[in-house]
């Protein structure tokens, strides 16, 4: 578990380092490895990435989640644009409760961020396994209907990746 966290943090940190530097040289590589190893040693005890799964299936699910996410982001912006431009403000807002099956903190973070960036929804609070969501155009205010409309499209992929 700790090994996995250390490995993922070092790989992510190195990618970050090369993105900032923009070139591959021996000096840059050595100093980057030293800095990233020190930084990873500080937070390895938290085991943040301990629940991420490594498998071809998880990778495919991650790509599928990315595709769904980008599509929803573009859709949500068209939705926002139409709402802003239309001469009369058409809104029907409500705060609804939805249930999630994800257990790990990282999975819940990814789910909450994806919900915030999809059409007309904004995560307001998380308590236990229920998320409270401000919905700009609420079609159903009960738990099952809202869960089906908001969470279902991301949960399948995220469950494979983060558990």
């Amino acid at each position, binding site marked *: 578990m700790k090994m996995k966290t250390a490995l993922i943090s070092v790989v992510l940190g190195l990618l970050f380092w090369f993105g900032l530097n923009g070139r591959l040289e021996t000096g840059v590589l050595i100093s980057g490895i030293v800095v990233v190893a020190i930084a990873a040693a500080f937070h390895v005890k938290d085991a943040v990435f301990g629940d991420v799964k490594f498998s071809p299936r998880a990778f495919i699910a991650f790509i599928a989640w990315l595709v769904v996410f980008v599509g929803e982001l573009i859709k949500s912006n068209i939705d*926002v644009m139409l709402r802003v431009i239309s001469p009369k403000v058409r*809104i029907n807002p409500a705060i609804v409760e939805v249930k999630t099956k994800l257990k790990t903190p990282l999975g819940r973070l990814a789910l909450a*961020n994806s919900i915030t960036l999809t059409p007309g929804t904004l995560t307001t609070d998380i308590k236990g396994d229920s998320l409270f969501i401000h919905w700009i155009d609420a079609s159903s205010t009960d738990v099952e209907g809202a869960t089906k409309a908001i969470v279902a499209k991301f949960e399948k992929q995220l469950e494979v990746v983060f558990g």
Partner: protein
Amino acid sequence: MEMTGAVLALIGSIIFFLSALGLIRMPDLYNRIQTGTKATTLGTIILSIGLCLIHPEWTGKLVILILFIVLTNPISSHVVARGAHYSGQEMTDKTVGDALTEEDKDKEGTP
């Protein structure tokens, strides 16, 4: 290539303008947060992709910038919405339901 990048940057700035318009027009805080967060996130992504097309050697830093924005922007809007709810911010009259307030009342009522 340069033209495509410039046009993408223009589209991004138009999305920014729409988010500003939404910030003015929406009636209460929660709806303002919604328009502000979504539109600025997509606007930054499109504008950065446009600049990546113009300067391919900047791609690394611009990708890191996009990752920052996509990770931190929803979190900050979430924190603001939460703070608004617990400091008793009014919602607009058109609101049809509020599960979070009911939940808090249930918790206070049980003991």
